[in-house]
């Protein structure tokens, strides 16, 4: 914001991407990396919780009873592709193509929505089969871990929509560029978390 060596950065030469061209951008991007580190620890705690409770099914449904390979593979692939399209959006932004940037962001949002749709369907299905959060410690930790990730994704979708609106109104400039870059970081991070959910929750659950 108000920094000592503002001058150093306020005349971007062509190598510096737009999102790094202002003091404010530099600080916020760095701050966001640190925020991701805190979120990492947050998920680490949820993962260790899950790992310790996942066999405590209290006679209720077990992992093998619930997890369904095509279902979670579909979720995984959708999220991986959305991470890719989000990466393309950042690249288009660097090239200054507003139309392509917005198009890729919209694709990312749509993929995100379909991921959420599948996840909600999965949860509803489980609950319908009596596998509720109140049933056992395993299920409490399952819904909390996967649900926390789902909340993060939903928040990401809302965030991207707000940024799309801002891009539409203001075009690509230092501030919007920073926002696109940061929401991208967030989205890729969620993808990383999902890869671990895929591994620790689903794959571990279906292997014997």
């Amino acid at each position: 914001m108000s920094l000592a060596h503002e001058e150093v950065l306020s005349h971007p030469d062509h190598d510096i991407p737009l999102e790094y061209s202002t003091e404010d951008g530099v600080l916020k991007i760095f701050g966001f990396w640190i925020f991701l580190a805190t979120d990492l620890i947050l998920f680490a705690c949820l993962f260790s919780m899950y790992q310790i409770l996942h066999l405590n099914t209290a006679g209720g449904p077990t992992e093998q009873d619930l997890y369904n390979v095509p279902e979670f593979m579909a979720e995984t692939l959708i999220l991986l592709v959305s991470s890719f399209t989000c990466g393309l959006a950042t690249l288009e932004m660097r090239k200054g193509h507003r139309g392509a940037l917005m198009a890729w962001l919209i694709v990312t949002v749509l993929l995100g929505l379909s991921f959420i749709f599948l996840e909600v369907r999965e949860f509803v299905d489980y609950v319908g089969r009596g596998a509720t959060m109140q049933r056992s410690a395993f299920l409490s930790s399952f819904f909390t871990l996967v649900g926390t990730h789902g909340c993060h994704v939903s928040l990401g979708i809302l965030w991207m929509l707000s940024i799309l609106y801002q891009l539409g109104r203001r075009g690509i400039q230092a501030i919007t560029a920073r926002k696109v870059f940061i929401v991208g970081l967030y989205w890729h991070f969620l993808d990383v978390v999902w890869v671990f959910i895929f591994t620790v929750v689903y794959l571990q659950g279906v292997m014997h």
Partner: protein
Amino acid sequence: MALPGYVGNAPTSFFVTGDPMIYASDVLIVLTVIGIVFVLTYYKKWGWLWREWLTTVDHKKIGIMYLIAALLMLFRGGTDAVLMRTQLALPNMHFLEAEHYDQIFTTHGTIMILFMAMPLVFAMMNIAVPLQIGARDVAFPYLNAISFWLFFFGALLLNLSFVIGGSPDGGWTSYPPLVENPTDPGPGENFYLLALQISGIGSMATGINFLVTILKMRAPGMTLMRMPLFCWSILATSILIIFSFPALTIALALVLIDRLFDAHFFTMLQGGNPMMYINLFWVWGHPEVYIVVLPAFGIFSEVIATFSRKRTFGYSSMVASMLAIAVISYLVWLHHFFTMGAGPGVNTFFAISTMCVGIPTGVKVFNWLFTMYQGRIRMTVPMLWSIGFIPTFAIGGATGVMLAVAPADYQYHNSYFLIAHFHQTLIGGVVYGMFAGLYYWWPKMFGFILNERIGRWAFWFFNIGFYVCFLPQYQLGFMGMTRRIYVYPAGMGWTALNLISTIGAYLMAVGFVLIVVDILYSIRYGERDVTGDPWDGRTLEWSLPSPAPHYNFARIPTVTARDAWWVMKGERKRGEVKRELEPLEPIHMPNNSGRPFILSVLFFLGGFGLVFEWYWLAIPSGIGVMVCLLLRSLEYNMDHYIPVSEIKRTEAALGRS
């Protein structure tokens, strides 16, 4: 299984009833609020309050607000402490009843750690860090305001439980399964969980904010190894906050989910595992004690160097030991629950790692001593607190190593030995440190010096009271007195020691009152600080007028060495390099905003709604929070420039060119 006084989970009455002390505080609270409202209205100060304080994003003002809130909380927590010590003064006392005692030790512990020590640390870092590194504000001033208001409303929520709904009573550690619904119905525990959650979000943001500030906003020439040690300590503390608070967030959130939605993380039934809470809590809890004590170390380093008129001895080893403490403190958390019995391998590992923390701490103590050695020592009040700290902390550290011996801990665990140990470190380390900082930076904050004479009296009352209060407790621990008991029979041999301990607590209370007296006295009669450098300081904050103008530095200084201001003064004295003053330039500053305050009010309402499971209140508040965030995101005019003419005027008024 409903307990008396509850229908299902809800208390039968909204306001707490039955206890004359609580009625008295009800009356006091109402009177205070009426008084404040009256004064503000009478003097037409509402606008001023809103413009100058509630909407400010200036780190100096935020620091002052933290300070005021923390001192109030110290008063509340201290009152709790005195009440407890009064109850324990003699055997078979019936001053407090069991339930009330439980609530008091819970709120005492919670308030002292989270709503007194933390904000006092935040006060010091807000006030000093940007000035010391030559910056005009923190990296994210708006976020800084949000942090403060979240802390403030978190504290308010916890304190509200005293008169509405009932206080939490599960201990400041709040272990399940005790705090689960069947054994702890009613809103008290929910107050604890939500108050900590709300202020915890703020603390996390502060950690990020100061890490970025320190790493990215130093004045030109100030390399990391030229930073004042206080800034280093805040850097280490920020790292600890960033990597440990999420564990608390999760631990509390899961208990809340258990309580509100009948999940089974920590219950005894359906496969829950309460030990996992203890594990997560201390993953945060141990780093937390270093979060509050490292800044105190930083303050001691500044104060001791200044008042010995010497550079800090062993600067790099100070830095290294601080970082070592930060990292090792992630590897020791099990020492808080050796008695869970995780097995010899586990206990041994954590016992040894705990003892390792002693090494860097020892290095620091020796460095302080060597800094004083052959220095020209001035016994000011900040220096008194710093010197008083060394023996208290040495004893606290030694008993800490005793507790770290896992098999021996089976004896000490949860006895008064432990109570004495952690008060020795928390008071002798944190509180002494913050008082030193308070006296040291007070002129920088307010432009006048606190009276030294009253300050000395306060120190001696507090310091002597401290030993009288806590040394007997080691002995009591050996004699088998356990913590969290509200009454004990005569004939255990504990009576005399308990009485002495209570007398000590009263002496400390006198010490605290004297500090308040000192502040009130000095507001009227205190010596004005006209130079901006009353202590002949060494670091950049003393190069500014007291109090500093809102943009801090008219020109950002260029740093060439450690103890930058000391070096500059030396150059000036020798008449060297009278550098041409660069022309002033417009200064870029963030705008004030009312949104952090409103956002935090919404958090507060949401938290209050969840406490009583009133979703009609909680859900709209949550939506309100989202709307605030969205509005912020859509806002593009967030800052302004101060024109050169205005800077010139301000500087001239402060007697600077």
